């Protein structure tokens, strides 16, 4: 039976869904959010338990839904020449439960990639238009950092001071200085002082297995409690099957399964999809009707296409001195955007960030660390383990991925989830540009680790971990070349919005979450300002 009609139905409760729900609840809209996962109690996080590292290989907190296989997960079938290892989490808070909290912003030029460099496409909005929303999202999330990064436009004082660099960060920072390369302290959505009811970070590490103190921002501990106070309704264990439409072709609501398998329709005046760069196109493509036989908002055929993940590569330097990478926030104490802007003499267009990162504990090191080189077994085991554990600085390439239509998300014709909904099939192949960028970054990482005094270097080679899921319902002014407009509103369905990494036109060379949050707050304001059209 249809349920009471909401003003706004939000699907997904992660970085985007929480921000939209809270912002619109603040305004007075009646918001209902459907989330396929459940609340996760901080006391249950593996980070509080000494065997936390096992979750990196198996268990209900593993990053890969194909490994977890929980009722709230859905299968992701990887395909392509570089089949991605898709990493996401399904719970209240979404993947912010797992993320490191790294919080960089797009550069102004990232919104004008086609105009400046002749590749990809331009965004229909500018950094300046998004900046107030970046600032607002910073205050909601709680950020540690320090203003003044010369590689980025000036920004307001960060809500809390920077997290400590530690011996690891100080060592690599001195190496960047020695080479004359830019670096800066990272913005992290981890508070270094008591902030907004959350305690300061106590530097325990293990952030990616859940922060039990709430010092790391995840939307279940910051946005959601306030949205609920304002009257938002959050229904958990609600797996949405499809968006329903009325005879005029407007979104009517969503059909969803509850935890017992019962099918319901939640109706709303406006529907906002926030299911990430894979879940969103999966839902749109599965929402087929007489009016929309190829899926909803898909008159261009672009839904699911232009999937982007960011080229990643891990390079670990092994030092004689201890770097104690297992201490302190797992995320990025510092980063370099020296190679961020286009310089065609490097052999590729666009650029990359280098993230200077910490590491997990002894078991993960023995298994192979982030570069996939297990500590050898046998007579050399203890000697090599002593050389590596606690002695490593990791330099991570995060490169700009450019949109290509052959990288795509589709409905798998054979595999379904436990409710019979088709799985997502995700095809991905690195471009030649991305491969050349990775090779350049490998050499640069080796150079800076050498300057820092590393005795040896380990390289992950070509890998495709898909932390960042973007581009599959792109934004644009031209309805023939994009799925949503500059307000994240579907060109084909006026009361349907797509507000997550799917709407990214390009990926930039930074982690996406601060931009997802900023876009979500902006889209919420747009929905509210045009409320007379649908409320």
């Amino acid at each position, binding site marked *: 039976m249809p349920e009471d009609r909401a003003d706004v139905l939000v699907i997904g409760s992660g970085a985007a869904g929480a921000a939209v729900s809270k912002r619109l609840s603040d305004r007075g809209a009646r918001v209902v959010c459907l989330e396929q996962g459940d609340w996760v109690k901080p006391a249950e996080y593996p980070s*509080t*338990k*000494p*065997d936390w590292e*096992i*979750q*990196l*290989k*198996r*268990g*209900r907190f*593993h*990053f*890969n839904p*194909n*490994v977890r*296989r*929980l*009722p709230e*997960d*859905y*299968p992701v079938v*990887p395909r392509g020449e570089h089949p991605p*290892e898709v*990493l996401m989490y399904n719970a209240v808070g979404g993947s912010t439960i797992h993320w490191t909290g790294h919080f960089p912003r797009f550069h102004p030029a990232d919104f004008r990639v086609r105009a400046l460099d002749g590749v990809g496409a331009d965004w229909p909005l500018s950094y300046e238009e998004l900046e107030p929303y970046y600032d607002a999202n910073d205050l909601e999330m709680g950020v540690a950092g320090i203003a003044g990064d010369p590689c980025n436009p000036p920004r307001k004082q960060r809500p809390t001071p920077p997290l400590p660099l530690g011996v690891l960060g100080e060592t690599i920072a001195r190496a960047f200085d020695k080479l004359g390369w830019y670096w800066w302290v990272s913005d992290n959505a981890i508070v270094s002082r008591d902030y907004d009811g959350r305690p300061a970070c*106590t530097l*325990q590490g*293990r952030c990616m297995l859940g*922060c*039990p*103190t709430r010092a790391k921002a995840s939307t279940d501990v910051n946005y959601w409690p306030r949205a609920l106070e304002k009257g938002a309704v959050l229904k958990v264990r609600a797996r949405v099957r499809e968006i329903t439409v009325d005879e005029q072709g407007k979104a009517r609501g969503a059909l969803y399964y509850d935890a017992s*398998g019962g099918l319901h329709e939640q109706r709303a005046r406006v529907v906002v999809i926030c299911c990430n760069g894979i879940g969103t196109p999966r839902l749109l493509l599965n929402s087929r009707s007489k009016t929309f036989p190829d899926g909803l908002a898909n008159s261009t055929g672009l839904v699911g296409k232009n999937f982007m993940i960011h080229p990643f590569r891990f390079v670990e330097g092994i030092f004689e001195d201890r770097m104690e990478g*297992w201490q302190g926030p797992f995320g990025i104490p510092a980063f370099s955007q020296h190679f961020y802007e286009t310089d065609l003499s490097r052999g590729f267009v666009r650029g990359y960030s280098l993230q200077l990162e910490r590491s997990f*504990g*002894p*078991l993960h090191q*023995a*298994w*192979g660390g982030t570069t*996939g080189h*297990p500590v050898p*077994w*046998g*007579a050399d*085991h*203890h000697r090599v*383990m*002593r050389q590596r*554990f*606690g002695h490593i600085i990791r330099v991570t390439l995060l490169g700009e991925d450019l949109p290509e239509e052959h990288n795509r998300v589709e409905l*798998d014709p*054979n*595999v*379904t*989830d*436990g*409710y019979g909904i088709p799985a997502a099939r995700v095809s991905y192949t690195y471009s030649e540009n991305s491969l050349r960028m990775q090779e350049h970054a490998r050499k640069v990482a080796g150079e800076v680790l050498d300057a820092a005094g590393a005795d040896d270097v380990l390289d*992950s080679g070509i*890998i495709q*971990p898909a932390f960042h899921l973007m581009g599959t319902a792109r934004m644009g002014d031209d309805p023939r070349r994009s799925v949503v407009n500059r307000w994240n509103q579907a060109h084909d369905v006026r009361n349907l919005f797509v507000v997550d990494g799917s709407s990214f036109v390009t990926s930039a060379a930074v982690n996406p979450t601060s931009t997802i949050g900023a876009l979500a707050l902006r889209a919420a304001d747009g929905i509210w300002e045009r409320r007379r059209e649908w409320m």
Partner: protein
Amino acid sequence: MDRNHTRRRFLETGLKGSLIALGSGSLGSARAAWADVRRTGEPARESLSSAQRSTLRAVADELIPAGDDMPAASELNVVAYIETVLADVPDLRENITAALSRLEESSETGFQRPLHELSPEQRIDLLRRFEKEQPTSGQTVWGQGNADPDLFASLRDVVYEAYYTNPDIWARVGYEFHEARPPGVEMAPFDEGILSVIRRRPKNYREMPGA
């Protein structure tokens, strides 16, 4: 309706390689396993035969031998730990027992003796050959989530797991674990059965007139 992803559905689509080595989503808690092993010196739940235990013990000590002021794997009773974990993680148990069987077959074929009776050099030789004959690793580096069914890697990694989840090892490699905020002692969930007597008693408070 079964809302878990079914194993059959995954396997039908060619995902076998990426899933078979990974366990079923159950954890096999190292903390619980070590607590059991420390209390009794025995596995909490048996999942290996006596012969498999002997083989695993001998293999573990070749993978992590004593040296550099570090104990050999068997000195930590890793076999009991592994056996306890395998009882909770059927897919992993499938891999480990397959690996042990292959090694035993090679030992009998090559030396006409069980592996644990071979010399260290013979055991190392067997392990090296077993390692080389595994399929090219498709192992990924972020959490090894899409590990392939490399039986040798499964065996090596579970021995490493037993060794490096043991708190006795942490100080020796310079690692400390700090609980961010102790959640308190573990207690059994509340059982409403304990209320059955008191629930049958009459109310025991005074009604307030006019309330």
